[in-house]
């Protein structure tokens, strides 16, 4: 998973890269950790912190109230409640049914079966991505969630589109 560090801003990597690499290396691979790292990288780009370069750096003229007002941490509400789990399941189930119905309708109407077949995986993957709003992406800003879900949807579309293109030429 250490390759995911390449997604972080260079300045951030210089300061925390080694530590985060050590932490990742001590944990087993998990999909949750991958999503968490990607969302963390998006946060780091969108809300760059003032990275202290000296260990004894002291801030001056900062009141505690001001500090706490600004302390909107990445993944702040990370606890997934039972309600979140139900919402996530509803989005996955409802979305999969909806996308499957759409896919079946397209399959009967379109001649380009290779492309339509290639995109069948989207019926599950798209609802799964959206359901992450209630689990792994919970507490992230709307911008971070949008970039993650939109970016991953784009990547999936490109991969499946390429698969359809290859299938149509075999």
């Amino acid at each position, binding site marked *: 998973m250490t390759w995911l560090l390449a997604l972080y801003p260079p300045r951030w990597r210089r300061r925390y890269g080694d530590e985060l690499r050590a932490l990742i290396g001590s944990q087993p691979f998990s999909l949750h950790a991958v999503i968490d790292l990607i969302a*963390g990288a998006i946060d780091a780009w969108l809300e760059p*912190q003032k990275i202290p370069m000296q*260990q004894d750096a002291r801030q001056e003229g*900062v009141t*505690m109230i001001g*500090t706490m007002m600004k*302390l909107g941490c*990445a993944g*702040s509400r990370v606890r997934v409640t039972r309600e979140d789990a139900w919402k996530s399941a509803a989005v996955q189930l409802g979305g999969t049914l909806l996308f499957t119905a759409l896919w079946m309708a397209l399959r009967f109407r379109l001649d380009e079966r290779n492309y339509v077949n290639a995109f069948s995986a989207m019926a599950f993957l798209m609802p799964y991505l959206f359901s992450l709003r209630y689990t792994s992406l919970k507490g992230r800003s709307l911008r971070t969630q949008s970039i993650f879900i939109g970016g991953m949807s784009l990547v999936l579309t490109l991969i499946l589109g390429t698969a359809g293109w290859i299938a149509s030429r075999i």
Partner: protein
Amino acid sequence: MRKADIDRELDEFGRFSEPALLILISLADGPKHGYAMTEDIARIADLRMGPGTLYGAIARLEARGLIEPVGAEDRRNPYRITAFGEKALRARLASIQNVARVGQRRLASA
């Protein structure tokens, strides 16, 4: 600090996010590096914090002077809570305790 400031300050602690609060609590009994913090938080709060979330919170806490690196012996680099961070943590915990006390009292009288 005036009483009104402290009251207002406690109101604003509501914005103190859970990962940052848990990190401060974890560091309250001594310096720890990322892995030790993750394990400690999993033990005390039954919550396994992802590496991206942990370091997102660490970066914010450090940028605001609530924690500081101890000095790296190896690449894991432990952190400790600062006096400013300790003051913030005490105030936040007092606020939570106050809310919990009121809640318990109301439940008892219901």
